[in-house]
């Protein structure tokens, strides 16, 4: 680590460790845990709802608060997974496999303790590793000019579309509709109006905060309103003594912990992969390397460590492509991209050049948030299960009121509130037809950056399209884009051929 980097980290600590920031981290972690524990209400939705309320905050406080919410929501999903057999978030799905059988065997408190400590250690250590990687990543980012940023944007959109959904073409359609929506406001060079339907709210830019809140939070309400209560099982007894026994168990399993963290970090760093992939891969790896693989799924505590530690490591890992390249590693970091833009930080390779301090503050806030998570989770997680038993017909109107005031807060505009609601309906239609929401939002957020890079590149090259193939980085990115497009159909084809041959031989 260079003296310059150490200086940057100490500066970032100075910015982070103010009483105000610590209060926001504590509130953020607790709010995140609370919302993350509601099954079906993901970390992405939670950060999306909180996004407009960070508007009056300074950029540092806003990003620190959102990171804390991200950490809290990521863990919150484990609470109902342990206690009522229902993962609060997709990242906690593999947690259910062993944590709930443990609860059924009378070890609910121990399972809770394991999930808390594995999650905290996974998140804390992976954040330290990412902190060391930030500067090398920043140095690579110096090599990116407008040409590379344009190709990187196309690659990012493709990679996310391929990684997230089952259907690449549907993901890409969503992403390119997002790009099309992003080019609706005025022409950036001439100021001529393009397609704003006469709405002044669309004149300058597409308001991405109402779009994010609508797509993620409002669309979820259409589902939530159909539920009476998320769970009616509230007969769970837990004790602090057993919770601490779980903590001690995690300390006694360092290898399992490190393996899960490693998997989480690597998968988190891949654009689009996210917690839902990491927790299953980690659980599978732990099972295959165990002396008693048959006990996995029957209440093996190592299964809980594998799932929880990996999904927390994803939190830090997914910030690598987000901060360094402007490509989100998960749905929540896609919303974090919107937060960066909202607070004047332009995502993309130049972020590490121009906002290195803020990037370090974000990563350091994960460290501090994990410390608060440990305290907060040990203190209140056993009570948070009551949230799950709250009737949906109370949660839905409360969230509706919060989202409306949140969408309005951005520009004090009712147009934005309508926009949020329309995108809520669009999000619902997309989800019903198996379109991932993330490529669409990524297209809207990255659209102006991609277009700006395209226009500047065309200006430099006198409208020569071959300019986009004129550097090694650009060529590598084009090749990666093509590979990303064809890798899934190719693997499907190979699997089909192998399956046919096997059938034939049988």
């Amino acid at each position, binding site marked *: 680590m260079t003296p310059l980097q150490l200086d940057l980290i100490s500066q970032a600590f100075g910015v982070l460790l103010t009483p105000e920031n610590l209060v926001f981290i504590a509130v953020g972690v607790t709010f995140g845990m609370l919302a993350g524990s509601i099954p079906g209400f993901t970390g992405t939705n939670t950060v999306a709802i909180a996004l407009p309320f960070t508007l009056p905050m300074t950029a540092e406080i806003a990003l620190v608060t959102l990171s804390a919410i991200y950490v809290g929501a990521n863990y919150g999903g484990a609470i109902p997974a342990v206690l009522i057999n229902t993962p609060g978030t997709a990242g906690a799905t593999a947690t259910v496999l062993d944590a709930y059988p443990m609860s059924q065997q009378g070890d609910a408190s121990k399972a809770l303790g394991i999930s808390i400590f594995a999650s905290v250690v996974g998140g804390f250590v992976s954040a330290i590793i990412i902190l060391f990687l930030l500067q090398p990543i920043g140095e690579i980012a110096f090599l990116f000019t407008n040409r590379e940023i344009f190709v990187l944007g196309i690659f990012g959109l493709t990679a996310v579309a391929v990684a997230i959904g089952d259907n690449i073409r549907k993901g890409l359609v969503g992403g390119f509709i997002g790009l099309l929506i992003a080019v609706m406001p005025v022409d950036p060079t001439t100021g001529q109006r393009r397609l704003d339907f006469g709405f002044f709210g669309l004149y300058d830019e597409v308001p991405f905060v109402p779009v994010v809140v609508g797509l993620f939070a409002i669309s979820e309400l259409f589902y939530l309103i159909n539920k009476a209560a998320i769970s009616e099982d509230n007969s769970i007894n837990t004790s602090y003594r057993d919770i601490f026994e779980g903590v001690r168990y995690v300390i006694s399993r360092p290898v399992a912990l490190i393996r899960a963290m490693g998997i989480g970090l690597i998968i988190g760093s891949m654009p689009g992969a996210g917690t839902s992939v990491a927790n299953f891969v980690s659980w599978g790896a732990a099972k295959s390397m165990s002396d008693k693989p048959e006990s996995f799924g029957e209440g093996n505590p190592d299964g809980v460590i594998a799932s929880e530690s990996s999904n927390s490591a994803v939190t830090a890992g997914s910030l690598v492509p987000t901060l360094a390249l402007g490509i989100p590693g998960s749905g929540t970091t896609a919303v974090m991209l919107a937060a960066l833009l909202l607070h004047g930080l332009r995502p993309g390779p130049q972020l590490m050049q121009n906002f290195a301090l803020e990037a370090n503050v974000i990563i350091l806030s994960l460290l501090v948030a994990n410390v608060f998570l440990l305290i907060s989770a040990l203190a209140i997680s056993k009570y948070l299960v009551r949230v799950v038993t709250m009737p949906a017909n109370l949660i839905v109107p*409360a969230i509706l009121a919060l989202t409306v005031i949140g969408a309005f807060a951005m520009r004090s505009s009712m147009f934005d509130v309508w926009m949020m609601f329309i995108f809520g309906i669009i999000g619902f239609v997309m989800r019903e037809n198996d379109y991932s929401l993330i490529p669409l939002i990524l297209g809207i957020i990255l659209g102006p950056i991609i277009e700006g890079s395209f226009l500047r590149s065309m200006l430099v090259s006198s409208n020569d399209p071959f300019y986009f193939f004129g550097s090694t980085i650009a060529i590598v990115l084009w090749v990666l884009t093509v590979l990303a497009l064809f890798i899934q159909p190719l693997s499907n084809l190979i699997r089909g051929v192998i399956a046919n041959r096997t059938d034939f031989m049988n």
Partner: protein
Amino acid sequence: MTSTEAEEGATNRPARSTSAVALFRLAFPLAGLLLAVLYVENTYGRIRLENLYYPYFVIGVLAVLSLTVFATELRGLADYSGELSFVESVRDALGEWNRSIGFSLVAIGYIWLIEPIGFFIATAIAMVGVMLVGGRRDPLWISISTVIILVFVYVMFVQIMGLRPPSGPLGL
């Protein structure tokens, strides 16, 4: 976890008509293509072509991708045989999603009412409406929850965060 009423209702339902399913499945890419057509109509010949290279590149790729999605969906629909007529299918979908539709109507009314009557009065009405749509009937429970949430929103967002939502003639 309790299953949703929608899920419960969805089991053993007769298959909806092919045209209704097609309309719903193709709605999103169709909307994208419509937006693309409107974009070209509004910009072609009005903005110099050099500035339209990028938007038209996006539209071109979108058109190709949408056509492949159409082809895949239509191929899937070729093997699908609906049992209900189009009208029956629409009625069936309305029955399945009645609470979501009720919620949408309340939300539209709510957003529409915010400016004329003020944020807090509109929110109170909307909260009661959503709770009724969600199946809650106890007036005491509805009143107490509405007041608690309104007080929370007021303290948190107006007093602490300094937001100024639209206030109607009563100043609320």
